[in-house]
């Protein structure tokens, strides 16, 4: 009769916990997004003022490209932390770089929201705009949470094996962020 080692169990619990957490975020975002789809499908007109006009000092597509890259970078870095990615240099880099990428992401979201608001395009103006703010804001909030977690994990003093496990969990989270972000961009800007 073999008893499973305690650390093994902790790993299994953590992994299960992360999947469950991801599932519940998918449901949360899914509720918001299906609300968006239903509202849009039920509206005779659907104006998208955020798509046109100089939303910032450069085309919005550039902005999307950057934000997507930053999330991709976070995925890669956590992959490295998990010991799965390509080893480039020492780990400490991870902390401030992902912190920076995440912060930059949130900053762009807030910046564009501020710009829209300054043009009088506030959430109360129309249902489409309200959707823009809620969907973008939700992703920004979730990314902010991931950023804090990533920095925390990087600064934490734990054994290498444990750190690798956290990296694996972060990687899943950032992948989820990437998916949510692409869904949001697709829904708000492309379709």
């Amino acid at each position: 009769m073999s008893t499973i080692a305690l650390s093994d169990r902790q790993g299994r619990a953590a992994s299960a916990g992360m999947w469950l957490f991801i599932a519940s975020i998918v449901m949360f975002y899914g509720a918001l997004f299906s609300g968006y789809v239903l509202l849009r499908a039920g509206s005779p007109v659907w104006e998208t003022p955020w798509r046109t006009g100089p939303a910032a000092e450069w085309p919005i597509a550039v902005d999307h490209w950057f934000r997507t890259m930053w999330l991709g970078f976070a995925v890669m870095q956590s992959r490295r932390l998990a010991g799965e990615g390509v080893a480039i240099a020492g780990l400490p880099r991870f902390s401030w770089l992902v912190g920076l990428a995440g912060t930059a992401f949130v900053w762009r979201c807030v910046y564009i929201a501020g710009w829209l608001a300054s043009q009088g395009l506030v959430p109360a103006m129309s249902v489409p705009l309200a959707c823009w703010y809620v969907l973008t804001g939700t992703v920004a909030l979730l990314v902010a949470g991931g950023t804090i977690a990533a920095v925390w994990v990087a600064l934490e003093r734990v054994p290498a094996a444990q750190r690798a496990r956290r990296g694996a969990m972060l990687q899943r989270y950032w992948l989820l962020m990437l998916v949510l972000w692409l869904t949001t961009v697709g829904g708000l800007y492309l379709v």
Partner: protein
Amino acid sequence: MTRLTDHKTLGIAYATTAGVFMVVGFLLMLLFRWQLAWPGQPIAVATAIFGETNAPGGILLPEFYYQLVAMHGSVMIFLAVVPMAVGALGSYFVPLQIGASGLAFPRLGAAGYLLYLAAGVLMAASFVLPGGAANSGWTSYPPLAIIASSGQTVWLVGILMLGVSSMLGAISVLATIVAYRAPGLTLMRLPFFVWSQAMTALLLLLAFPALQGAAVFQLMDRVAGTSFFLPSGLAVSNTPLAVSGGGNPLLWQHLFWFLAHPEVYVLILPAMGVVAEVITAHARRALWRYGLMVGAVVALGAWSMVVWAHHMLLTGMSTTLSSFFQITTMAVSVPSVILITSLVVTLWGGAIRYTTAMCFALAFLPMFGLGGVTGLPLGLGPSNLILHDTYYVIGHFHYLVAPGTMFALFAATYHWFPKVTGRRLDERLGLVHFIGSFVTMNAVFLPMFLMGIMGVNRRMYDAGLQYQLAEPTLAWNPHMTWNAVALGVFQLVFLVNIVWSAKRGTPAENPWQATTLEWATTSPPPAGNFAEPPIVTGAPYRYEEEGA
């Protein structure tokens, strides 16, 4: 906080807090039941307690009545029954039943509890706001909920907090079951209660986020002036509302019921789990067709996520959609019937011991049956047309949650009290509690079916004084109210029993000679639960081999 990381302390903290909210919910109910029995007649002390704004001259104002009703439902469901069935029973007994020393993420569990406590206090405190607490029903339908007073904002914030809380709790319980089962404890050897808790946690985890999403939308509508749920051209008291409009009130109903129907299974599945444990132990028989029951509880949980729009059959959805939801609703009764049947057949040939726990568990069966059967006419369009929004609906779901889930919670208390305290509850007081509760519960809720069939609407401040069809039922209301009061008195017997027995009750280790793992350690269990990690070699219920 440190102590709350122990799953037993956590369970007791949940039980105590949920117990307090249960009393709060009950008192709210007594107040509005008084109004229903004697509409518009002053309550002597009401002004002194609730102030001139709520009860001038002792008469409950409609505005206050609706706060009472909305908060009764919200408190009972979100702050009392679910935390009791999931937070308390789940945290305390799941680790014990799987032979673990605690929960997988003790700090998450503790954080979940603290969030729940904060949300509960916040929501209860909203009564002191100008305009009082939330008053748009526990269902918070817009547009009403959006133009309601600020108590609704607090309600929404509370719901968001509760969502996070139940997510933390659910993750903690599920990960524990996944990773910390005793060696040899395969999935098909888990006690049925653990299965029911796992399914419940999964439902909370997957369904609650929909309500959180909806709460975000509604919060935006209330504080940021958006129109997610506000149609164009809405006027309140003939004044057009200064909003953009263009939203859809039915969207709320979809998102709300996508949570709230599974939520009713969150109320019933743990109850099923408890009743199964009690019946098998007190009838000295292994559960009949355990595997089938596990399949049924999984199916029930999964299926409960595709029936939600049976609450909206009259909202003008297409006939295709309506047929879909009528069919899924009829089908959901199949696994319920399987579960009930298995439990009844388990009794067959058993050596039944009529303990108080067993009496409550046995009473659960027909009460749940009545609640379930009365759901079927509600799930079919033509009969729903007549019954929707009447007292019949109130009767239907109260049979499931009041003599249903509540009886299961009572059974759990009598069954597991020795586990928690090392002492038994007094059986004579228990019998009084049981008989009293059984009689008064039915006296309160049975007439509601008839009232509903006669056409009396729910949520009427004056019990229907204005309607001729309600006339014959007006005289029933005082009887129902007195029975509700009596029900409360019998719960006092229960409380006395708990307090008295915790100190003076007969000491007992495993008074029911139960074979599940939680009884394989001392009562109460020591820190870390098991002196030696148990090793499991067989099925959870071994009453026949033992020859008890």
